[in-house]
């Protein structure tokens, strides 16, 4: 955190000054480790094993915050009798389909709801990263579940959890993670002792957790611990994602993503959602509790925002205009389609995949086979110049005179040359005032896409084609101003917020949205950002002049809430768990919730409220159900739906690993998404032979002095000079083993590429003892490319493209490699060099590590169908 979010880290330092103990777990000793009280080195990609050990420690010693766990989580809920755990099936859950490589989740459901599972197509769900919808809300489940408040039932979640993690002993943690057991126990003690009624512990993570084939499940493990310890919805608690771009949260909320629409509504699927009602009912599960129940209003209001007056209840709000998904249209699939010549044109908007994306060679070969490419950036980044300065030009794989791609570099306006909102990492929208006009031809992306749309509409005007109706009927009339006819960002934000069709007045809350076409709203979760016609994101009451929660600075979704699920900061009766940790409480005299934050709960619903047996939606949320976006109102220790690779997190080895999974016969995530292509070879991993060719683990990360793929730092003198050159770090032990010398050149090799840089031999890296062997880890920064003021090889060239099944995030933090002294071969010799490595590793051509490595797969398949089970 000190490395990549130094200013956020000031609050950690402030907490430390007040007595907090800061524990840092990381493969490498970083600037965070330097000031942490405790540093724990760990093997990259073994976080679930580490935290699974913590879960076991909590449960074995009954250190959970029992009152919180009973009242607010699904610990007491009974799961189907048909469910089989990884304990039974050597690392698989019940329901694995070896043909499709996915699970049928029927047997994972709560008892009595097995049959109620909607028709599912798990393979399609993986292809379209469908679980990603759950960033704002839980998946649909019924609220009417059987519970055992004594937690003794063998199939209650609490007992399942206990059994599932029974193998995750301190000895096993040591064996998997390379963390000595005493070191692990020290963390377990610290975490549990600092949690409960009087104290809370915060969990902070970044892409070191997410960029794995088990990314979503790693976060889940953290969430399970925090729920068990009562650290969710309370001040000083939480599971906090430190995101890496100024508005990466915003670009997920209002997604430029293939599988989502604004507010985490799903993109329609050709098979699953042929009609409007299919689409809408797939979003809200009948019998479900909570605010997601009102999804039809959010859907209708979005379509009204898109097609305005043309969208009416009679034509299903132009649902027929919506394009449909049929599978994976994600970035990695796109890249392969580009290589195959299927994609003609490509817009890059402030992203530099030639450097920043996994398997850089595939990225560049794809870009080199387009009809046209539009790059919008501040600088001539590598993705704009790949045709003249990439490694592939060096090797002859891209010959400029033969490269067909027509490239338009369109200079972009910087953040000070346009106005608009960023959404930062805690869901806070902040408006930026414009300081001055952009120089020369530089324009905002708002300008570019508004006018591009305008020109296209002009060119297509009068078209008789049915396919042109959606673009011609689009509500695309934004006021413009200034000599360049800049569209009004406030007008767009107003549409995002939403307004009533009849009065034109902006809405205050998504509760006002209707499914009858009377409201317009571009993103329901942002409804309220323009409440009362005022740009709430532009509120700037100085921090010193308000409470520590600072509710009058910017605007946080939803409804300006700063801590989600903050009802959990009070006990079931509505009293703060402790005075020290008071945040929200029920005020009996005022008859409403009061506190430092906006209640993430109906303001006047008392703690004593109990829903009737037929209640649905928000009415079904009891006065002590804090998790109002979950179908059952509870925090989920066990996820019966919503995750494709299991209801509970399980340690799997990264697809490329130097060791056999010590926990199960199943080596790696059996549901991971792979692309079996010659451009995308994966190294042999146990139990396969030839793993000795790539014997080391490598991991990558950022430096404080640079930003992502370097497009905003290698071209900035005052940053580039601070970390002037590509380098990589090795321990003295590995340096001795491979003959690497400090400050001399060295290079790291995989089957995908070779990356050279100066060697930094440092005590900040250490070999780990994993099982009976030493595992060496190499660390590389990934900021460099052949462009910019400071140039160098791109570390992402080393990675293969293999993805988490839930959200299609790639394994970008753990791979295997070799490391050698000296520079890598250049030119055509590089191709020969890599081929020689591939040959030695077993003549790899299309190699992917095997998906299934346990015989239990057949049993899993058999037990996945309730009819055949037991």
């Amino acid at each position, binding site marked *: 955190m*000190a490395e990549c979010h*130094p*200013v956020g*880290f*000031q609050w950690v*330092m402030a907490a430390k*000054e007040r007595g907090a103990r800061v524990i840092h777990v990381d493969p490498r*000793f970083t*600037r*965070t*480790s*330097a*000031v*942490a*009280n*405790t*540093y724990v*080195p760990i093997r990259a990609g073994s976080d679930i094993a580490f935290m699974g050990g913590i879960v076991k420690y909590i449960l074995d010693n009954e250190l959970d915050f029992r009152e919180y766990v009973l009242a607010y989580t699904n610990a007491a809920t009974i799961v189907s009798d048909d469910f089989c755990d990884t304990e039974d099936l050597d690392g698989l859950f019940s329901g694995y389909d070896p043909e499709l490589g996915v699970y049928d989740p029927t047997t994972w459901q709560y008892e009595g709801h097995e049959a109620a599972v909607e028709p599912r197509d798990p393979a399609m769900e993986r292809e379209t990263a469908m679980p990603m919808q759950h960033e704002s809300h839980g998946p649909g489940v019924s609220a009417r579940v059987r519970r055992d408040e004594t937690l003794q039932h063998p199939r209650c979640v609490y007992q399942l959890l206990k059994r599932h993690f029974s193998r995750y002993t301190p000895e096993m943690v040591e064996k998997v993670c*390379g963390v*000595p057991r*005493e*070191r692990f126990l*020290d963390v377990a003690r610290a975490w549990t002792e600092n949690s409960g009624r009087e104290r809370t512990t915060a969990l902070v993570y970044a892409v070191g957790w997410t960029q794995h084939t088990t990314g979503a499940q790693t976060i889940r493990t953290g969430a399970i611990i925090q729920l068990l310890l009562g650290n969710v919805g309370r001040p000083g608690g939480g599971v906090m994602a430190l995101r890496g771009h100024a508005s990466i949260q915003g670009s997920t909320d209002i997604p430029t993503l293939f599988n989502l629409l604004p507010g985490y509504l799903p993109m329609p699927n050709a098979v699953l959602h042929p009609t409007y009602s299919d689409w809408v009912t797939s979003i809200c599960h009948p019998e479900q509790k909570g605010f997601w129940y009102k999804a039809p209003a959010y859907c209708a209001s979005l379509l009204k925002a898109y097609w305005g007056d043309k969208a009416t209840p009679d034509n299903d709000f132009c649902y027929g205009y919506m394009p449909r998904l049929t599978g994976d249209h994600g970035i990695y699939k796109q890249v392969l389609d580009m290589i195959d010549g299927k994609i003609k044109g490509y817009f890059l908007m402030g992203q530099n995949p030639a450097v920043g994306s996994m398997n850089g060679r595939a990225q560049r070969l794809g870009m080199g086979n387009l009809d046209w490419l539009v790059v919008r950036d501040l600088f001539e980044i590598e993705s704009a110049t790949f045709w003249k300065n990439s490694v592939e030009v060096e090797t002859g794989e891209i010959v400029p005179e033969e490269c067909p791609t027509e490239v338009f570099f369109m200079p972009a306006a910087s953040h000070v040359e346009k106005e608009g909102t960023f959404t930062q990492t805690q869901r806070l929208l902040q408006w930026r005032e414009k300081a001055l006009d952009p120089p020369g031809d530089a324009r905002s992306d708002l300008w570019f896409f508004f006018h591009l749309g305008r020109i296209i509409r002009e060119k297509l005007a009068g078209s008789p084609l049915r396919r042109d109706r959606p673009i011609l009927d689009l509500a695309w009339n934004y006021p413009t101003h200034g000599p360049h006819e800049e569209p009004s960002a406030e007008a767009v934000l107003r549409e995002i917020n939403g307004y009533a069709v009849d009065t034109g007045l902006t809405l205050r809350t998504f509760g006002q949205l209707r499914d009858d076409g009377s409201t317009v709203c571009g993103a329901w979760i942002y409804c309220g950002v323009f409440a009362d016609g005022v740009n709430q994101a532009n509120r700037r009451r100085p921090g010193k002049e308000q409470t520590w929660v600072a509710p009058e600075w910017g605007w946080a979704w939803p409804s300006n809430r700063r801590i989600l699920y903050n009802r959990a900061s009070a006990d079931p009766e509505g009293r703060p768990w402790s005075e020290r940790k008071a945040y929200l409480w029920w005020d009996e005299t005022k008859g409403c919730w009061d506190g430092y934050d906006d209640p993430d709960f109906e303001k006047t619903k008392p703690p004593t409220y109990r829903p009737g047996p037929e209640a649905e939606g928000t009415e079904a949320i009891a006065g002590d159900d804090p998790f109002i976006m979950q179908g059952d109102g509870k925090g989920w220790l066990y996820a019966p739906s919503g995750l494709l690779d299991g209801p509970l997190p399980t340690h799997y080895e990264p697809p490329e690993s130097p060791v056999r999974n010590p926990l199960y016969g199943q080596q790696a995530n059996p549901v991971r998404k792979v692309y079996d292509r010659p451009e995308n070879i994966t190294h042999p991993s146990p139990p396969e032979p030839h793993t000795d060719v790539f014997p080391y683990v490598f991991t990558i990360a950022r*430096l*404080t*002095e640079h930003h992502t793929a370097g497009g905003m730092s290698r071209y900035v*003198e*005052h*940053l*580039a*000079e*601070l*970390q*002037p*050159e590509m*380098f990589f770090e090795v*321990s*003295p*032990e590995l*340096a*001795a083993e491979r003959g690497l*010398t*400090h*400050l001399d050149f060295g290079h790291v090799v995989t089957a995908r590429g070779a990356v050279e840089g*100066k060697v*930094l*031999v*440092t*005590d*900040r890296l*250490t*070999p*780990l*003892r994993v099982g009976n062997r*030493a595992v060496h880890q190499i660390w590389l920064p990934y900021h460099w490319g052949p462009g910019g*003021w*400071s140039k160098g090889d791109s570390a992402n060239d080393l990675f293969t493209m293999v993805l988490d099944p839930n959200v299609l995030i790639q394994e970008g933090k753990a791979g295997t490699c070799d490391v050698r002294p000296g520079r890598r071969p250049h030119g055509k010799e590089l191709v020969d060099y890599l081929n020689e490595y591939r040959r030695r590793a077993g003549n790899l051509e299309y190699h992917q590590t095997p998906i299934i490595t346990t015989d239990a797969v057949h049993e899993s398949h058999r037990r996945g169908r309730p009819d055949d089970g037991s």
Partner: protein
Amino acid sequence: MEVENRGLRDERVIRENRLYGPLDPAPEAGYGMDAPPRMGFFTDTSVCIGCKACEVACKEWNNVPETGLDLLGMSFDNTGDLTANSWRHVAFIEQPVSREKLADRGVAVGGQAGNEPPAFEGLPTSRTAAPEMAARAATTGKETGTEPGVPPSPEPGAAVEMATEFLGMPSSVLPGRLPGGERTDFRWLMMSDVCKHCTHAGCLDVCPTGALFRTEFGTVVVQEDICNGCGYCISGCPYGVIDQRKDDGRAWKCTLCYDRLKDDMMPACAKACPTESIQYGPLDELRERAARRLEKLHEQGETAARLYGNDPEDGVGGDGAFFLLLDEPEVYGLPPDPVVPTRDAPAMWKRAGMAALTMAAAAAVAFVGRRS
């Protein structure tokens, strides 16, 4: 402490300690007894996270040029030193240290600069990289476009000392910590260095043109419109801070953001510093704050923590920019006992005074002659 500080603004003290000894320098420099309070930096290295925001914020505000692309291999330090083109410099020291020795030397394990348990306890480590790394890094140097800039170290052994446990030995031969020794444990020290704005500033005292001057805030500033690049100040600085740009020949260094101070603004580096490692304020307040901080660290068992440059009785009359260090100054590359070159000047004052007057008269003649 407060009384002592106030005492520094005493006419008798000012008269007697013009060239050496405790002093509040602004009144002595013509600003009178109602000069603004002396302003300075207190850099608390125990909370430094090595982000280098100070280096960048300084360059952005003062339009300091870049210094080229040189990977120095000195841990994450690629600036190398304070130069005319780097007015803040964050030093990184990778230090292998054993738990026992840490305790012996008053470093609290789990305190401000040692992990608890020790960072690599229980892990299969063998030889340490730090001494070799430092030795090799020290020979790389850096082309900064300034003079003397960051030359390669003629004696890499000195760098080895910095990187390892400093044992107070004068030479580079370190008993028990030879290159290739066992790594028992580790800490990573970071420190943002800056011009010290000495009470008795050697650079200022030797400047023949009046380019260097004492401001009303008690700070020492090079005036870019006066400096003629003679370079005398370079040898006058006991810390080796001051440096010239090769292209224009002039000397440049931290001004403590003199322009910002005039508008009651915080210097750029202190304002940017995310963790308040760099604190800015009236020097007497900073000295009190530093004393409290030191006391707290000592209470936590961090008895090796010390203040550096805070003592008005030291060889430069105390620094306007002083530090809290977690180890010996040498570990951070700081001289242990800096002395202003003019220490012996009072004894020679009459002679020097006469000489100065003579020189001034000569300069006046020359100046008038040129004007006419």
